[in-house]
C-alpha cells in the first residue's frame, strides 16, 4: 500500500518538487492535458447524434476526471469514479440504449431552432457569471498542502471519516438505494396490477 502510494505520487508528481518560476512540470502538463481531454470529451458527448457515441465519450470524460482526482491526491474517489461511474452507471445507460430499439437513425437528427440558440446563449451567460464570481471575489483561495492532501485522500482516512463522523448519513444511503431499487422495479414492470 505504501509502495503503491509512493508510486502513484511519483507518477503524478505530487512529491513536493519546488521548481522555481513558471517551469513546465509534469504536473502542469498532466493537469492541462486531462482538462483538455475532459472538456473535449464533454463537448463531443453533447454534440453526438447517436446515444451510444455520447455514452462512449462520456466514459472518456469520466476517465479524464478520475485522472484529475489523482492529481488532487484523491485516490479513493478516483478509483470509485472508475468503478461506479464508468463501470456501473454507464453500463446501465448502454443497456437501456440497447433495450430501446431507437430504430431509424434519421429520426435521431435534431433540428436547430431559435429557442435552442437562446438556451445555449443563456448557458453561456451562466458560464460568464460563474467565472465572474471567481474573478471578482475577494476571497483568498487556499494553497494546497500536498502532504496533508495525500493523507486525507487515502482509503483509510475516507473510510474512517465515513464510519465515524458520517455514519448516520452512510446508513441512510442504504434506505435511498433500497427506494431506488423498488422504484426501478415498479417502473420497469410491464403491467402494474
Amino acid at each position: 500500500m505504501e509502495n503503491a502510494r509512493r508510486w502513484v505520487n511519483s507518477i503524478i508528481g505530487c512529491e513536493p518538487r519546488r521548481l522555481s518560476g513558471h517551469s513546465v512540470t509534469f504536473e502542469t502538463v498532466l493537469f492541462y492535458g486531462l482538462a483538455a481531454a475532459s472538456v473535449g470529451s464533454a463537448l463531443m458527448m453533447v454534440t453526438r447524434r447517436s446515444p451510444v457515441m455520447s455514452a462512449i465519450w462520456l466514459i472518456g470524460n469520466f476517465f479524464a476526471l478520475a485522472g484529475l482526482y489523482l492529481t488532487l491526491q484523491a485516490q479513493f474517489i478516483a478509483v470509485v469514479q472508475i468503478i461506479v461511474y464508468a463501470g456501473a452507471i454507464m453500463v446501465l445507460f448502454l443497456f437501456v440504449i440497447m433495450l430501446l430499439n431507437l430504430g431509424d437513425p434519421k429520426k435521431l437528427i435534431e433540428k436547430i431552432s431559435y429557442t435552442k440558440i437562446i438556451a445555449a446563449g443563456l448557458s453561456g451567460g451562466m458560464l460568464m457569471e460563474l467565472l465572474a464570481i471567481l474573478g471578482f471575489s475577494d476571497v483568498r483561495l487556499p494553497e494546497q498542502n500536498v502532504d496533508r492532501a495525500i493523507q486525507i485522500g487515502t482509503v483509510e482516512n475516507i473510510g474512517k471519516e465515513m464510519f465515524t463522523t458520517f455514519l448516520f448519513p452512510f446508513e441512510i444511503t442504504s434506505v435511498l438505494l433500497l427506494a431506488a431499487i423498488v422504484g426501478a422495479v415498479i417502473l420497469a414492470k410491464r403491467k402494474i396490477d
Partner: protein
Amino acid sequence: MIPLEHYLILSAITFVIGAVGVVTRRNAIIVFMSIELMLNSVNLTLVAFSSYMGDATGQVLVFFVMTVAAAEAAVGLAIIIALFRNKQTVNIDEINILKW
C-alpha cells in the same frame, strides 16, 4: 503547483457544457447523460476544495453524490423505459402529457 482557480474554472466549463446539453438536446437519454456530466463537474469542485483545504468532508460528500447519482440513473432510466413502452419514442418534444 496548479492553483485552485484552475480546477474551479474547469469545473464551471464542464458544468455549463452539461447545462447546454440539457437545454438543447431532445433525446431523453442524452439529456440524462448531460445531467451526469453536471453532477461530475460539481464533484470535481468538491474534491478540489477538499484537497486544497485539507478536509476529508468534501470527498465523503462526493461519495454520497455518487450514490445519489446511481439511484437517480436507475430510477430515471426505468422512467425512460416506461415512457418508451407507451409512446415508442424518447424524444422529449413528443412526451408532453404533463404540459398544459
